[in-house]
């Protein structure tokens, strides 16, 4: 489906099949269109073209109240005039459920916040507000729970606790979750599958292990933390191992590609730095000069010439006396890089 919002933003040809009962994370940078996609699933906006199916029902033209979805916004969008208990009972009362109150209490109990029932939401902490928002959304037993950056307004410690809570609740209730975030570790921990979305386009869908190690495009690779993106050309290929010319140096890489211009993605933690050429099972050795060293807590990021970045511990950097101007050897295994075809031959 597609929708053009004018003002230069649109969601383009989103083709996405989310499985029943799965925890699906939509991962993308700010302003990628994640929230808008979520709001279209909920029915707050209609697509210009295309269709939305929810649980075997064509929902494209259904109003939000007929879609059986629950929605939790980043800032929770709680009702300022209601107590926490009334929030949870809100949807149940609309359905005329006589046991609305008791069911609401049970849900608050499940989320460990029974004591909040009579409190007005202005008096709640961020974490408590979030639980109320989740309980409110789950009360009506939706088919799909839509979470818009549910963790990003919480402090780090509450975030960790809440991750566990989200997964537990999702498994217990068997509800399908679509969780939007820009946070990679959040996606890695929570997701059954991840959809990477950038500039209104769904770039890649797959399990976390695949998405993070095998990004499909250069932009996705950059966003997902692949810091070494090296242009090259396949010189020869045998038994699934290609020899690639990286700006004058030949390296061996495992890839199904046979020829042509390529881009080689290597995560910075997969690069080993040494003073001397070392003899290991790793098949690739590049020499390069250190440009800059950035210490980041216990880690150090070493920027080398030719656009190579390596992530090593700060202690290694200190013991090897790595500083700008030093010539080093950068080693990586043939299985470390991920190779994609590159448009056009020039680099």
């Amino acid at each position: 489906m597609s929708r053009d919002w004018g003002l230069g933003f649109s969601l383009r040809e989103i083709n996405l099949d989310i499985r029943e009962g799965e925890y699906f994370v939509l991962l993308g940078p700010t302003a990628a269109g994640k929230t808008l996609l979520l709001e279209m699933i909920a029915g707050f906006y209609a697509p210009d073209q295309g269709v939305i199916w929810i649980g075997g029902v064509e929902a494209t033209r259904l109003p939000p109240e007929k879609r059986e979805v629950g929605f939790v916004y980043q800032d929770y969008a709680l009702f300022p005039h209601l107590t926490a208990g009334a929030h949870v009972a809100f949807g149940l009362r609309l359905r005329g459920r006589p046991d609305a109150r008791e069911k609401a209490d049970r849900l608050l109990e499940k989320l460990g916040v029974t004591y909040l029932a009579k409190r007005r939401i202005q008096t709640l902490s961020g974490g408590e507000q979030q639980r109320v928002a989740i309980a409110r959304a789950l009360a009506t037993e939706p088919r799909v729970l839509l979470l818009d950056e549910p963790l990003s307004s919480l402090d780090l410690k509450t975030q960790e606790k809440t991750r566990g809570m989200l997964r537990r609740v999702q498994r217990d209730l068997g509800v399908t979750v679509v969780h939007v975030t820009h946070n990679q570790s959040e996606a890695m921990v929570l997701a059954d599958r991840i959809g990477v979305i950038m500039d209104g386009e769904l770039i890649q869908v797959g399990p976390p292990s695949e998405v993070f190690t095998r990004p499909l495009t250069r932009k996705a690779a950059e966003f997902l933390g692949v810091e070494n993106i090296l242009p090259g050309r396949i010189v020869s290929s045998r038994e699934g191992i290609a020899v690639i010319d990286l700006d004058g140096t030949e390296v061996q890489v495992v890839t199904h590609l046979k020829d042509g211009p390529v881009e080689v993605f290597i995560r910075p933690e997969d690069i080993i730095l040494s003073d001397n050429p070392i003899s290991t099972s790793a098949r690739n050795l590049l020499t390069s000069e250190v440009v800059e060293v950035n210490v980041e807590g216990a880690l150090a990021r070493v920027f080398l010439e030719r656009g190579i970045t390596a992530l090593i511990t700060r202690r290694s950097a200190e013991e090897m006396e790595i500083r700008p101007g030093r010539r080093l050897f950068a080693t990586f295994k043939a299985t470390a890089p991920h190779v994609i075809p590159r448009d056009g031959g020039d680099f």
Partner: protein
Amino acid sequence: MRPKGFYIWMGAAGSILLLFSFVTIFNMIFTQFLDPMGLLGAITDSSVLASIWLTIYASILATLIAVVSGTPLAYILARKEFPGKRLVESLVDLPLIVPHTVAGIALLMVFGSHGLIGQFSPVRFVDALPGIVVAMLFVSSPFFINSAREGFQSVDPRLEWVARTLGADPWTAFLRVSLPLASRHILVGAIMSWARGISEFGAVIVIAYYPMIAPTLIWDRFLTTGLKASAPISVLLILICMTIFVSLRILARGDQS
């Protein structure tokens, strides 16, 4: 150092306006208190009491109409973008700049016996309660609509969206979420609109000199008998309206907390 002098100067300049209003109103009240018999005379004059009651009552009717029709209008103005919205907004504010005598004449041309609507209407507007109500409604509606619109604008539309996912249709979402959250603005708007209706004179006398509302009666007494006859009625009207106005404002505030 600077803030102190700054606020003293700002306060000094601002107090000119404050004193102006205060002196004008309370001078009249205090002067009248020196002549309690005059005030007593006004209180016991049945035509005075009838006119004050008529003023309050007619303005309540005008406000009710403003609330019933103005609330949906305010909601649409707060939530929707549509071609011609600027024009509609200007139309809402138009009564604020039209001189009141002009408003009265315009109303007469619509609701008068030979007017656009008046000629077909079974209800008589000229020199009758309905005429007073339409005149008050015309001048007071912007106060209500603008306040109610601000109220709806202050409600995040996403609250309604979330209510929709919980099973509320658009009507229920409006009644359960937006309306209660805008209620204070709506109440304040209604009070302002009611107060504005009471204070209207120019538009009313053109379409309905009789039955006399209090401002008309005061004008009439002033012309026929002079200041001494009109001042006690003015003070009485001011005291009654101030009491109601202040109590309603307190009520509206209490509603929020």
